[in-house]
């Protein structure tokens, strides 16, 4: 197991300094090594993820303004390539695609031939993976790629991935990775991690090596050992970002809070606003739920099964013959939030939230889960206080009664039990 304290995850060598001009060499080296390079780029007034032909396609000088139900790109005052926060997409569209063939089956001549879908998994390099998204990949690995899923299509795609993470120095207004323990510094799992250092005169990256593959790749790029001064500057920029989160999650143990909140009145409140559109589940980098679609051709001899992203906000999600289990909006929002922050721990051993804030940004009515959790917490505390008060009153009453009956006769009579 890798250690997680600052610096603990880094390769013994480094860190290094890389000039911005070397970024295109790094991308070129990745391409030469057979990777399809995927990274952020500006398209249709958003920063999306796309295959990059060159480093020039990175969103140099672009930032984003984030708000509940709001996303705008803006021109930055500098030329930073990674001066933006989470966009509408996440890496799950590559590792866990929205629609894919699972298998096909032919029945002809009395045979029943099932052929697993065997799309060659392209080796991909993800450039610009935020610490929150790196954690999200780790969470999906746990759900879809380990244990009995070690032979899954997901696992095959995942095994080929090279990760260039980018530490955060400028969190967005809807970010709360500090609360979730997933950022702003990248945890383990990257091959290379960059920290962008940009000023009027200078544009550099501090580079940490996270794996032997990362070291091999960096060996093909002109870098110099980073001095203590620059390293310190980069580290403190990341450390400072921890205090600049636009949102925060209550510090209480969310697992327990969710387990105790099934009857909360707040669910009715949020259900009044929630459209149950499922946007949050599509934008979430860890939401993994899928459904299937069976199709057959006109001959009736060939059929296929496809897997599609599904959402717990749809009525059909919990359908049993007779009706849907979660028919109310209230129960479907509750399912999503209690799963994400609570029962995910029971099912998969961690939280399902990485604090990227996408669900807040892409909610058409701006529902903010940090606000919902704060309200649930306030409700739980109020209930606790009322209970404590009632218990105290009861105890006082009992004490008063006991004092009244504390006579030798009563004790001898065994009335105290």
């Amino acid at each position, binding site marked *: 197991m890798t250690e997680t304290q600052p610096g603990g995850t880094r390769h013994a060598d480094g860190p290094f300094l890389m000039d911005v001009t070397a970024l295109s060499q790094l991308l070129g080296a990745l391409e030469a090594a057979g990777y399809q390079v995927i990274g952020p780029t500006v398209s249709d007034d958003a920063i999306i993820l796309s295959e990059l032909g060159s480093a020039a396609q990175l969103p140099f000088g672009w930032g984003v303004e984030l708000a509940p139900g709001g996303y705008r790109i803006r021109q930055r005052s500098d030329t930073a390539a990674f001066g933006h926060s989470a966009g509408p997409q996440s890496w799950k569209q590559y590792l866990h695609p929205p629609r894919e063939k699972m298998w096909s089956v032919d029945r002809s001549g009395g045979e029943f031939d099932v052929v697993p879908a065997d799309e060659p998994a392209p080796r991909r390099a993800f450039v610009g993976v935020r610490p929150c998204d790196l954690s999200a990949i780790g969470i999906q690995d746990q759900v879809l790629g380990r244990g009995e899923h070690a032979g899954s299509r997901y696992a095959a795609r995942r095994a080929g991935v090279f990760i260039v993470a980018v530490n955060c120095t400028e969190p967005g207004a809807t970010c709360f990775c500090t609360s979730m323990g997933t950022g702003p510094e990248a945890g383990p799992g990257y091959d290379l991690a960059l920290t962008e250092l940009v000023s009027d005169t200078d544009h550099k990256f501090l580079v940490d090596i996270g794996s032997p593959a990362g070291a091999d790749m960096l060996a093909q790029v002109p870098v110099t050992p980073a001095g203590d001064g620059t390293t310190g500057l980069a580290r403190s920029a990341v450390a400072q970002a921890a205090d600049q989160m636009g949102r925060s999650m209550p510090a209480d143990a969310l697992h327990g809070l969710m387990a105790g909140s099934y009857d909360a009145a707040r669910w009715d409140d949020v259900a009044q606003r929630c459209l149950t559109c499922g946007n949050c589940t599509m934008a979430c980098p860890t939401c993994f739920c899928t459904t299937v679609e069976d199709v057959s051709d006109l001959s009736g001899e060939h059929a296929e099964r496809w897997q599609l992203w599904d959402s717990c906000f749809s009525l059909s999600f919990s359908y*049993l*013959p*007779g*009706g849907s289990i979660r028919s109310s909006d209230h129960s479907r929002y509750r399912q999503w939030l209690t799963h994400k922050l609570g029962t995910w721990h029971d099912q998969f051993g961690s939280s399902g939230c990485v604090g990227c804030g996408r669900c807040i940004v892409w909610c058409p009515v701006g529902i903010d889960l940090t606000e919902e959790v704060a309200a649930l917490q306030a409700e739980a505390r109020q209930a606790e206080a009322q209970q404590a008060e009632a218990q105290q009153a009861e105890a006082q009453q009992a004490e008063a009664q006991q004092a009244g009956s504390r006579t030798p006769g009563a004790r001898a009579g065994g009335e105290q039990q």
Partner: protein
Amino acid sequence: MSPVPAAELAAHPFLRGMPDGQVAQLAEVATAAYVPVGHRFFEEGGHARRFWLIRDGHVALDLSVPGQPSLIVETLGAGDMMGVSWLSPPHEWQYGAKALEDTRTFELDGAAVIARCDADPALGYQFFVRLMTVATRRLHSSRIRMLDLYAAPGQTGGR
């Protein structure tokens, strides 16, 4: 029919936990009965005077349907109490009751039991708590059967 020793009556689940003195009062108006399979305890619409504590056997509560075999509403067996129509006017049986097997019962005279309950409210309380428990259980099971739980979804008014 033969008179009933209080200790035997006390062993019936319906009277479990009732103080001995109270059971003794009921034993005074109880008789032990044995009926063969096919015996009809009462007919729908008949005058209701008695109730039974079933010791063993199997009894069907039924309704007669013109042109068809009688319809069984519910079956009762060992430990069950049978018959409440004697309790209130018009003192008419709502169903019929027929032994599906050889059956042993304790048979109690309703009016005599009421008279003893009137005279001894403590007995009355104990008796009616038990009667209410039986009634509640029967109501509960009727409601559950109304749900038609085992029907295929959408098949009938069920789920």
